């Protein structure tokens, strides 16, 4: 358990509200004390040390902070950590297993889906949500699904290819 209000500023003065919440992150229950104003992105990065989730714009525009909240992609800079009480959160750290990369990670590697890598965790989580509801997406559907995620390097072309690559691999392995 980590006491996260310290990360914001000095220890809370008397009367500063602190809430104890339990959320499931990548399959593991985590109980934390948080100030209500702590953003989910900051709980993940600073509190739980899961720095795979990036914060880019911090103004709800870029999608770098995308995680799955009960399976749906959300911008973790635009939700409070207290709101995750009793919910499931998946981050990019949950994709790979001990022995193997997730097909999306392989796809990004095979198709050069990243350059600086800053947008990549958000892209992968948005793509994961897409492939779970639509295992055989068209290129258009992929572009649509990642249209809330900005990339300043790749021009998107190879990100789309990487997701197509992963979709094919995932369809193959489920047959």
């Amino acid at each position, binding site marked *: 358990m980590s006491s996260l209000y310290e990360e914001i500023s000095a220890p809370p003065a008397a009367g*500063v509200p602190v809430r104890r919440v339990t959320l499931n992150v990548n399959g593991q229950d985590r109980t934390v004390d948080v100030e*209500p104003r702590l*953003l989910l992105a900051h709980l993940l990065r600073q509190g739980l040390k899961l720095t795979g989730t990036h914060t880019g714009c911090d103004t*709800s*525009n870029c999608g770098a902070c995308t995680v799955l909240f009960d399976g749906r*992609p959300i911008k973790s800079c635009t*939700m409070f950590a207290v709101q995750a009480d009793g919910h499931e959160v998946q981050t990019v750290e949950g994709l790979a297993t001990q022995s193997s990369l997730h097909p999306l990670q392989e796809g990004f590697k095979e198709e050069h889906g990243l350059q600086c890598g800053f947008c990549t965790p958000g892209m992968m989580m948005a793509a994961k949500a897409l492939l779970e509801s639509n295992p055989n997406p068209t290129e258009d559907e992929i572009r649509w699904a990642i249209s*809330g995620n900005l990339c300043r390097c790749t021009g998107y072309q190879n990100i789309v290819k990487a997701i197509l690559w992963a979709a094919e691999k995932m369809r193959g392995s489920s047959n």
Partner: protein
Amino acid sequence: MYPPRFNYESPKSLAEAISLLTAGGGEAKVLAGGQSLVPMLKLRFASPEMLVDINNIPGLNYVRRDADGSIHIGALCRHEDLEKSEVIAEHQPTIAAAAPLVADPIVRTRGTFVGSVCHADPQGDWSATMIALDGHIVAQGPNGKRNIPARDFVTGPFQNALAFDEIAIEAVIPAPKGDVHGGYLKLERRVGDFATAAVAVALETSGGKVIRAGIALTGVGGRTINANVAADSLVGSALTIESITRAGELAAAAAEPRSDHRGSASYKRHIVSTFLTRILNNISESTVKAA
């Protein structure tokens, strides 16, 4: 960026939420999808003492069509739920057309229809559809429920007609009396941008004639504009090239655009008339085909 400090409550019932708002005496705010409120808090444009999170109140996430044909959208129905709804796809063309154009796909998984109408952003998409459809908001407070017509709901930029202790529990689109037609066109610079200009249209026809029309404009004034003069000009006759052109001119005249980084005022006016005529032409073609 950190929001200012606030207390947080997540009530499990509407009654509990309303008493929290009442006790807050105007210093408590409803938190729905948070897709407008959280950014505002981070920028410190708002600093409520308490947030009353309604996300854990059961029974508010629905979109349904009643036997009489009216459509009801609960306070926790997300933009994405409407985008994917079969009820909407089949019965409500204005909302179906707007749903994929609101914000971006990630924002749409959280942001709510009702929250967006409450937020009363002059550039928000849903207020325009509600005004065009002549819908109303059902507000619930300590003294029970009341209906507020969409056209009176927005009282100014980011201001609505709710009292501090009221929650908007659902949006209602009344039962149509004729065949339902509609559309929504929005010009945005890129996905996720607010409208440079957008036009919402809702028509009902019977025997080839327009029996009800609603037109509302987004992004071209200090609030969503009810282009009722343009809409009224269509009622009572069939859509013709002349009536469509005239409605386009009247709607452009109703717009109050300002020149800004999204475009000049005259450009935005031009978009309004182009979009309106485009939507009406589509409706006219489809009704001719159906007849």
